[in-house]
């Protein structure tokens, strides 16, 4: 086409200019690529690549942060590991001392000397468990700014909590970078907790997410059929409280009324003359979560229990199905500390928790995790925790009292336990010569002991056992109906029968055992073992030293378990660290391939463009000079 066109001076001029521009632009771009080392300067240079580059860059930057989080967690866990190892060494040392002092060569004097050693061991171990990492205490849970363990005479109190805060080591991957003093050394005792669901009632203002013990109500629709051919879908997804639900149901106009049942357990729907059916819609669970689902329920549909969870603000009189709890209060005794929880200013669950937590008895009260009950724990190692009535039934209403049947055997005689041996522990002989051997080593509670006797296949109802309370005892009754002796004799050198106080023979038809004098709830911790050992050594009491050895064994198991947990976490960290490193490396590779200038190629390009530029400068200089006018005269 160009050949067909007239070429004018302006065309020559313009095309020279524009090709010079093109060449210069190319040279400038080459220059930028070489000097910055980057292929692209702005997104529009290559939007797809640039978007990838930014995404990879973000991943790499985040990984760098995760890497530093991992290092932080890893050094914190390292410090935790070494503290646990040292604690283990101390436990082993205490056990050695206990072993030395339990054998025949030990005297009161050697024991007294060893007691001094244990005393300093307790102080040493306190320094260890109060170890700091940076400016925070390692073993206080999330209470990191004060020493978590504190010595109070022979006892050691734990002031921390059982939280193990997590940090992020990969996107959305949380990692607990420490373990609490509870897990490591035993900070909390087992709980004295409400025996069962304290069953608060629902009120109109109860939030839907508190229902079903905190599982809540799925937002959605319910379908109501009146059994007369009419049905309606009602959208309850915006409801937040039972009040909202009731209003929405009433506003639908489809039923005569919806209301919360007077007992606060659930909802009730009414439509005169109808045969109500309530269904969930589209696989939802709104209706069943509200306890409304039912088929052909007649004109009045009674909903099921909506089971609200206990909240701090729940009034105590809404508990126990609305019957509330007695307000006489209860007493807490923990070692030498004691307090009466006075209910005059306690109206809500939160008030109760505050009252216990500030009672100065080294106890922690809180709602248990599923929101059904209140639990109280001792944080004082070495002490026994008892909760007793203050003249009323408050403790029983709250479920803090153990029944005779539920009393754990290890609490007998202030923690002495049942002292059973492998094999049968005692033999019971009834008046009708029914004779059977009982092995109580599997018994966890006094109730278990009772059941082992009553359910013994050879018993056949000849002997009936029963747990008695106040004082706690076991009673055996001869039910064989013939006159004669009922006797219990120990077997295999077991002390169980004497522990229960039933190793006797009687013709009166019944044996009432000794007062089992149950100890309180004990915080099984390293310090419990140390404290018992100190006590056993200083009073030179064989039984206490043996009990201390059992406690130390348990403590050692606990520390080793914590050590294993930490070890497992360190391995998780290492795997995560490796993964992060590999990912970072690979993304760097990709980024370099996608975004970095290939210098050799860029330099060659630069030279080529420069050559073309020079050539075009020369030719255009020649071309633009000549015109025919020069040749005219």
């Amino acid at each position, binding site marked *: 086409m160009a050949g067909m066109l007239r070429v004018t001076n302006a*065309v020559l001029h313009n095309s020279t200019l524009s090709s010079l521009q093109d060449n210069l632009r190319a040279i400038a771009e080459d220059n930028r690529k070489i000097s910055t080392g980057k292929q692209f300067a702005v997104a529009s240079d*290559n939007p797809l690549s640039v978007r990838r580059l*930014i995404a990879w860059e973000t991943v790499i930057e985040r990984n760098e942060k995760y890497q530093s989080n991992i290092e932080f967690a890893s050094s914190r866990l390292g410090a935790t590991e070494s503290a646990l190892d040292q604690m283990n060494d101390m436990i082993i040392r205490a056990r050695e001392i206990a072993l030395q002092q339990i054998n025949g060569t030990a005297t009161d004097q050697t024991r007294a000397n060893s007691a001094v050693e244990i005393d300093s061991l307790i102080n040493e171990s306190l320094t260890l468990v109060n170890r700091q990492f940076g400016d925070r205490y390692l073993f206080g849970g*999330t209470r990191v700014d004060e020493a978590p363990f504190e010595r109070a005479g022979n006892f050691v109190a734990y002031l921390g909590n059982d939280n193990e805060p997590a940090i992020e080591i990969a996107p959305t991957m949380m990692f607990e970078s420490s373990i609490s003093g509870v897990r490591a050394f035993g900070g909390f005792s087992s709980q004295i907790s409400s025996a069962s669901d304290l069953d608060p009632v629902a009120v109109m203002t109860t939030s839907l997410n508190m229902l079903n013990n905190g599982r809540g109500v799925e937002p959605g629709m319910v379908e109501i059929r009146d059994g007369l051919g009419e049905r309606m879908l009602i959208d309850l997804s915006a409801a937040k409280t039972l009040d909202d639900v009731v209003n929405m149901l009433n506003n639908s106009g489809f039923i005569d009324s919806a209301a919360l049942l007077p007992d606060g357990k659930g909802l009730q729907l009414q439509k005169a003359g109808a045969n109500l059916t309530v269904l969930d819609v589209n696989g939802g669970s709104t209706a069943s979560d509200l306890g409304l689902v039912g088929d052909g329920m007649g004109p009045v549909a009674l909903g099921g229990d909506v089971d609200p969870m206990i909240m701090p603000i729940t009034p105590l009189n809404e508990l126990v199905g609305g019957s509330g709890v007695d307000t006489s209060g209860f007493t807490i005794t923990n070692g030498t500390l004691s307090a009466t929880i006075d209910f005059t200013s306690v109206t809500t669950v939160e008030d109760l928790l*505050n009252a216990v937590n500030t009672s100065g008895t080294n106890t922690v009260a809180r709602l248990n995790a599923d929101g059904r009950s209140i639990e109280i724990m001792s944080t004082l190692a070495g002490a026994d925790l008892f909760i007793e009535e203050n003249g009323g039934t408050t403790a029983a209403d709250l479920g803090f009292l153990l029944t005779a049947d539920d009393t754990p055997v290890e609490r007998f005689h202030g923690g002495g336990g049942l002292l059973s041996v492998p094999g049968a522990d005692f033999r019971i002989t009834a008046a009708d010569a029914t004779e059977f051997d009982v092995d109580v080593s599997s018994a966890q509670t006094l109730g278990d002991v009772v059941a082992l006797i009553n359910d013994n296949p050879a018993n056949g109802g000849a002997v009936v056992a029963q747990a008695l309370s106040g004082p706690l005892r076991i009673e055996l009754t001869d039910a064989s109906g013939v006159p004669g002796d009922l006797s219990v004799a120990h077997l295999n050198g077991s002390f169980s029968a004497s522990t229960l106080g039933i190793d006797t023979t009687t013709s009166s038809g019944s044996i009432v055992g000794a007062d089992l004098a149950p100890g309180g709830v004990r915080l099984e911790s390293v310090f419990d073992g140390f404290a018992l050992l100190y006590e056993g050594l200083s009073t030179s009491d064989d039984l206490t030293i043996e009990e201390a050895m059992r406690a130390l064994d348990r403590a050692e198991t606990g520390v080793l378990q914590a050590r294993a947990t930490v070890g497992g976490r360190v391995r998780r960290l290492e795997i995560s660290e490796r993964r992060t490193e590999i990912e970072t490396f690979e993304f760097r590779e990709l980024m370099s391939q996608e975004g970095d200038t290939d210098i050799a190629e860029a330099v060659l390009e630069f030279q080529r463009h420069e050559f073309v530029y020079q050539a075009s400068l020369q030719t255009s200089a020649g071309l633009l000079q000549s015109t*025919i006018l020069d040749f005219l005269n």
Partner: protein
Amino acid sequence: MSLFSSLNLARQSLGAHQTAIQTVGQNIANANTEGYARQRAVLRPTAPDDRIFAFVGTGVEVTRIERIVDEHLETTLRGANSDLGNLTERNRVFSMVETILSDLDGGGLSDAMARFFDSVEDLANEPQDPSVRGLVVEEARTLTETFHYLDAQIRNLRGSLNTDIETVYADVNRISQEIADLNRNIGTAEAGGVAPGSANDLRTQRDALLTELSELVDVKVIEQTNGMVQVVTGSDVLVVGSRARTLEVEWQSDGDISFHTARFEDDGMLLRPNGGRLQALLNGRDGLMVQLRQDLDQVAQQFLTEFNAIHAGGEGTSLYTELAATNAVTGADLRLSEAGLPFPIEDGQFTFQVRNEGDGTRESYVIALDLDGTDDDTTLQDLADMINTQVGVDHPEISARVTVDGHLEIQSSDDSLKFTFRDDNTGALTALGLGTLFTGTSALNIDVRSQLMDNPTLLASGRGAGSGDNTAVLDMLGFRDKGLLGPDEKTVEEFYVSIVAQVGVRGAEARDLLLNQEAITTNLQNQRESVSGVNVDEEAIELIQLQRAYQGSARFLTIVDRLLETLLNSV
């Protein structure tokens, strides 16, 4: 037929060639004039003398001076010019936006967000460390300042586009007027039997103006029989006959910037071009810039709502003894959902918690907001009253009030009684700005709440389980990976990158189109040049040719003169 008529023939020939030579001279003189179309003198034999037996030629005359112009090509070229102006401008807008958003070398919003999140990671590690808290507050400030900076840059760019638009409006007015004037002159010049199109140089001037105009707006040119042109842009007539429709430029404001719009003086309609620079500028100012600000606001609002909700329901290593809401209601007695708060607030409840610093106990009070749209809906005054009655019964030291300017203020006169909030399902804390991390509503005004700058221990990190509690921080980190934005549920960082990338894609498209259009326009210009352009060499040859003809005519005159002399001498 006589020798005298031959003399006359020579005279005419000399005259005609002189005109032709002048035309060549004019061409050479305008060789560099943009838009100039070369001219040719059209020679024609004069009418023959038919008074004798045969038709005898009587000489030559210049009938007209012709502009060598391909009208179709001119129209195409004007269209191409509009497209080129449009794309040049569009490309310029995108490259300026890219410079603002540039995220490849750090310093941009992506970087600020990443650094903020990094500091939050540090806070998760060391929630008890005051220096880490200070760092988080500082990084949050950097983030808000980056939002301000970007917002200001986009506003500035919008302002500068507006300045360009104002200039274009003025140019359009000027050019329309000049075209209208030329229309009148051409109409006059070509009236009364003169061959149409003979007002060459006026037409050349008008063509140049039309070309200039076509760069600014799309231009449709309709030539009328009287030589005048009607100029239409979009669907609006700009010039009709000798009248230009003047544009009236007025100021408008959309809240935070003022900008110009143009209306026709006669009917008050807005000028709506379909092409040219103006359209690209208007699209940039009223489309891209507005969209960008909206996108940026969306990112800022995600931070505002998500972080604020988590922050307001958590607590730092110290709690509040005084707290002022940062958002005001328009009336203390208006229902909260209709009280002009910047974020939605709905029926539900939140917990007001009082902590006794002495024994560490906490008391919770549920503040229930009735906002179901019925008569007894909660107002801000009700809310303050609820706090005063519920909390005040146990703790008269704690009081709430609504200030005259509609802010809720809560105060504890006892330093050992502090308060915090929990479990808000109403959005009230975020909407009122109670205990939030950020204040403001958009990229323009997002800020770190000043109380936190003064006292970073108030920065919420946990929910009351001690200074090592980082549960609130973990929730904030969770926001980083939460897909909340757009139909494809992008995280806030992904969303921003997609904004940048989208500008990149459209910028790249604009650049490719521009390069294409440059090639097309150059090609068309070359075609036009090849039809209408002046080639000085050609003109020189033409000149030689005309010179020779002139010389011939002169020689012919000499010979006829000699013939006459011979004749006279013989008498």
